[in-house]
């Protein structure tokens, strides 16, 4: 009865079927790309909106995860030795702290930064740098893409998105600088094209070299334009030009360092996804495939993935829920709404199970991709009705290169900064920072 078992969505999506082929292609696999022949450790952050029904998420006492997992986590039962549930983590700066309402936007902005986002619907957005970007600055140097940002919902459409907070806050968990959210891609086809090129396989090496030379010259020219222009602009305007420079540098880096490997991939028989599937679950799974593919080809080691933007009022017709998710999340303890909420929460976890299972199916050396990954899954709001940000629903899947013992429910004192988890994760990949947001140490007993 598990809808994932049918896997009908695989039809026509060559990506999925070609993975075993890909794995055999030594030059492409992450394992071979690393000079030490040790698979790299990846970081992924998967975000779900509107909190989670905690009563059906938290697995009883601390210790080994029980065979009977709570309702929401049940789809992960067979994988229970591959992840940890962490209880008690908190994003202190997701709370109002005097800024009034706007928990959806604020907690999303805070989720990976641990910083209190400046309350504004327009000018001067300000937040902190997120953990994925801190990691990407270091471990991203070695890959074609420093990081990958994906999701299933575009940014906000009109109006301020949440009680005076800009849409930039509620639709982005990844922030490369205080004022710069990293936009995400929501179309699997476009993710694919970005990773592997637009499929013009016939392009010959010589013309590619020539095109790269032309591109470089175009970029040189416009950088000069921008530099001249910047010197004539006021402060605020010239900040906008800085974003421009940053973008140009990113492209240049790719031109200089990395070879286009699309031809090799196409040789492996990988097809392009068609576009955004109409079924939401299929959309999530396909985006998950893209993430895994990017990890596998070692195109990036850092990924953020928003199943939806916070405050999302999507209906889940495919599982018989026609009210909006946000409306339902304000359940007011109404048993009917609570039941719908936990059904949605479980549906999200079913998709997560697909991603984890697939990572586990990919062999890397004598382990699996999952063994070499730290995948954080959870929400920035604990209870959707109370809008609290302590005791957040968080799980961490994967063994981080065998540094992390899994299969546990680890309970921390309530109000332990979630940023301490991020500090521990950064440590484990050798990225040294003194502090992230409100961190005040490392998580004990995890690594």
């Amino acid at each position: 009865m598990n809808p994932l078992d049918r896997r009908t969505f695989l039809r026509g999506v060559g990506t999925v079927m070609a993975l075993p082929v890909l794995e055999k292609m030594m030059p492409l696999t992450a394992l071979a790309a690393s000079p030490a022949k040790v698979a790299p450790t990846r970081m992924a952050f998967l975000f779900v909106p509107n909190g989670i029904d905690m009563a059906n998420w938290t697995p009883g006492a601390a210790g080994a995860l029980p065979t009977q997992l709570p309702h929401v986590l049940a789809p992960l039962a067979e994988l229970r030795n591959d992840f940890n549930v962490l209880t008690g983590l908190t994003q202190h700066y997701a709370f109002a702290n005097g800024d009034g309402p706007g928990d959806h936007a604020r907690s999303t902005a805070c989720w990976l930064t641990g910083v209190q986002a400046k309350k504004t619907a327009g000018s001067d957005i300000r937040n902190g740098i997120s953990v994925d970007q801190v990691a990407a600055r270091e471990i991203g140097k070695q890959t074609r893409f420093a990081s990958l940002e994906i999701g299933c919902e575009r940014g906000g459409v009109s109006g301020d998105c949440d009680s005076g907070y800009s849409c930039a806050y509620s639709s982005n968990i990844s922030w490369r600088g205080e004022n710069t959210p990293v936009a995400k891609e929501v179309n699997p086809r476009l993710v694919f094209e970005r990773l592997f090129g637009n499929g013009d396989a016939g392009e010959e090496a010589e013309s590619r070299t020539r095109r790269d030379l032309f591109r470089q010259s175009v970029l040189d020219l416009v950088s000069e334009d921008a530099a001249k222009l910047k010197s004539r602009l006021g402060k605020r305007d010239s900040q906008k030009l800085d974003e421009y420079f940053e973008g140009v540098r990113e492209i240049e880096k790719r031109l200089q360092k990395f070879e286009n490997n699309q031809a090799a991939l196409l040789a492996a028989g990988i097809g392009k996804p068609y576009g955004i599937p109409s079924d939401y679950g299929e959309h999530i799974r396909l985006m998950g495939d893209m993430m895994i593919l990017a990890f596998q080809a070692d195109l990036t080691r850092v990924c953020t993935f928003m199943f939806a933007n916070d405050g999302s009022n999507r209906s889940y017709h495919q599982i018989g829920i026609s009210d909006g998710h946000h409306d339902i999340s304000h359940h007011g303890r109404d048993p009917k709404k609570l039941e719908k909420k936990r059904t949605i929460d479980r549906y999200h976890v079913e998709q997560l199970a697909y991603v984890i299972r697939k990572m586990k199916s990919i062999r890397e050396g004598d382990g699996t991709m999952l063994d070499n990954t730290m995948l954080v899954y959870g929400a920035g709001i604990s209870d959707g009705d109370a809008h609290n940000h302590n005791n957040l629903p968080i799980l961490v899947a994967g063994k981080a290169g065998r540094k992390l013992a899994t299969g546990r429910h680890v309970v921390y004192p309530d109000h332990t900064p979630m940023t301490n988890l991020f500090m521990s994760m950064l440590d484990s990949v050798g990225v040294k920072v003194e502090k992230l947001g409100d961190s005040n140490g490392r998580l004990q007993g995890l690594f």
Partner: protein
Amino acid sequence: MKSKRVRGHVEIGKIAGILLTSSFLAGVVTLGPGLSPQSAKAKQGQAKPASAKKPAAKATASGDAYTRTIQPFVTKYCGGCHGGTTQVANISLTKDKSLAAAAKNAGLWQRAAANVSNSHMPPKGLPAPTLKERQAFVDAVKSLTIADCSLADAGKVTVRRLNRAEYNATVRDLVGVDFRPADDFPSDDVGYGFDNIGDVLTISPLLMEKYLNAAEAIAAQAIQLPIPSKFTLTGPMLSKAGSASQDDDSVDLMSGDGKAIGEFNIKRPGRYVVRFAGYQYAAGPENASVALRLNGEEVGRFEMANIAPKTATFELPARLNKGKNRVEVQFLNDFYDPKGPDGRKDRNVTIRSIEVVRTDPESYSESHRRLIPVDPKPGTERDTAKAVLTKFAERAYRRPVSADEVNRLMSLYDLSTKAKEPFERGVQLGITAALVSPHFLFRVEVDPRDAKGSRELTDFELATRLSYFIWSSCPDDRLFELARQKKLRQPGVLKAEVVRMLADPRAEGLADNFAEQWFQLRRLDGFNPNPKQFPGFDNELKEDLRTETKRFFMHVLRRNESALDFIDGKYTFLNERLAKHYGVPSISGDQFRLVAMNSPQRGGVLGHASILSITSNPTRTSPVKRGKWVLENILGTPPPPPPPGVPDLEEKHEDMTAKTLRERMELHRKKPDCFSCHSRMDPIGFGMENYDAVGKWRTADDGATLDTSGVLPDGRKFKGPQQLKQILLQNKEQFVRTLTDRLLTYSMGRGMEPKDQCHIDSIVARAKANEYRFADMIVAVVQSDPFRKRDIRP
């Protein structure tokens, strides 16, 4: 069931209101808990003289507007909730100690004045100021900001990058290719309700990458590379079938089934000449003969009289398809006589080459000819490229370009030439660079060095602001020419241009981008009502809803009708589907047409199903959302966000058991500000309950009759949408002010500041004197100082 719930909501509101009022007062005059409203009112009466000990009139002898009028008003009517230690909704009106302090805080005071002016404040049940007192307060607040518009500065506009809609439209108008490259760009962030606000539009590395890809794609699409028109296959490039042998320079056909084959991949289908070259080895009584086949069909036969090694060519015209075309030459009449004379024993055929030559004239796309009107004569390529790139850069940068800028674009052309690429490739490269340049991607307004204060925009800057405001695109030839002649700034010319531009099809940009965002129509994308409850609501109908409102908007604009028509215009635009949805008879076909609407059911955007849908939940209406929509977008007094701990926009009172209901009331009792906002939002929404969640008219909900009556905080009562509109029209100036604020925000890409009020006032006054004609309001916006000038940045 449902309507009971709705009625329940009213009652809860009332109950909450009463309870609230008492707890409210408890805060003000420290009454004990549990007092009935009556006793609260009684106490209130006693409290009055206490706060009126120093009557405002007597303190007036000296002092400014602040100490004379504002402070006494606040002490008397506002301070109990918005001052000292009680700061309901986080608002304190007692912090400012002087006129100067209040002037710096003018935004807050303007909000207070708006709420006092439309009687939202003080809430019902508290001592109410007289109309005269209200007016005095509002006037005094006005005087906090600069009264003389000529002294107000023009405001600061942050450099704006093109948003997605503008990028698409600009590319369309610049190169004449309408393939919407920006649809794949990441979403633009939204500020102040619009997605064209300079401050929030950022460039991420992902977007930069998309800009580069899009620029290359646009250049490739706009300029065609020459395609060689003759394709020749010789010896080894040919293939063979049947009895034949192939060597380095030919295919020899040995007997009757031998074939030489050439395959051609044709990019431009059309008329060609198909040609092959070869000779025969003669034997027997006749010459060798061959059949020519094209894609399997015989198209001709040839007798080869020429004998090896003398080569001859044979040809015929044919039409080739796009893609693969297969040309075969087959030997037909083999002959072998071992007894024949030497050299004439064996008849064979040798084919040395097969070629196809295009005979159609070169044809170029419209965009190619637009950018390169005439092909360069040999030797003048570089000059032509320079002329083409100069013109393109001018239009892309929306201003004249310097020699240095052109030379740098030409350096790319030279690079391409050095790589032995054709002329067209070099031009493509220059165009690519122009389209990635910050001068194209950003709408740049550069101030002269060492300038101070504020300045008028240059003619080119003005042309650009104008074209992006009205067309969401770049200036056209005429605007560019007027700017070049420095005529655009002349008031008469400017006005005439606005009128011309509004009549142009590109003015639809205002409907697509301004109206869609002002009315929040883009939320329709994410609105999916429960298909079981609303089975007829499909994507086609959804598009129709959007079309109705946009057509209505364009009608008011193009006909220069009164902006008040947005509230109660007695007409709309319908096609058959939408007419059925509304229950309007005898309209057939997909085409939208103007339909008079004299029924009290429809008329004005509040009766548009688009707006009624986006303010509903997937399963039911939401009076709260509808009320909030009207407050935000019609009255310009958005309710402050709910206080912490209370979710945004939730109608929790519905669907509740008695126990939770009590909990809610407890909550309300503790937080008086719930009431102050919901008493504004909810009644408006109740007045619109005649429309269901997809905007259909109804008089009952699930069998129960509807209660569509509402009472505004100031006690005004109404019933149903018709009376609601009448009430809104009592505040027509407030609506026009909201519209003006929205227009200025959109046109300049920045939020309104207190000092802009003076400009808004004068536009509203002009509109009032001119029957609120909408197109004239657009003219007034364009002629206003903030639009025509800019502050010089430090």
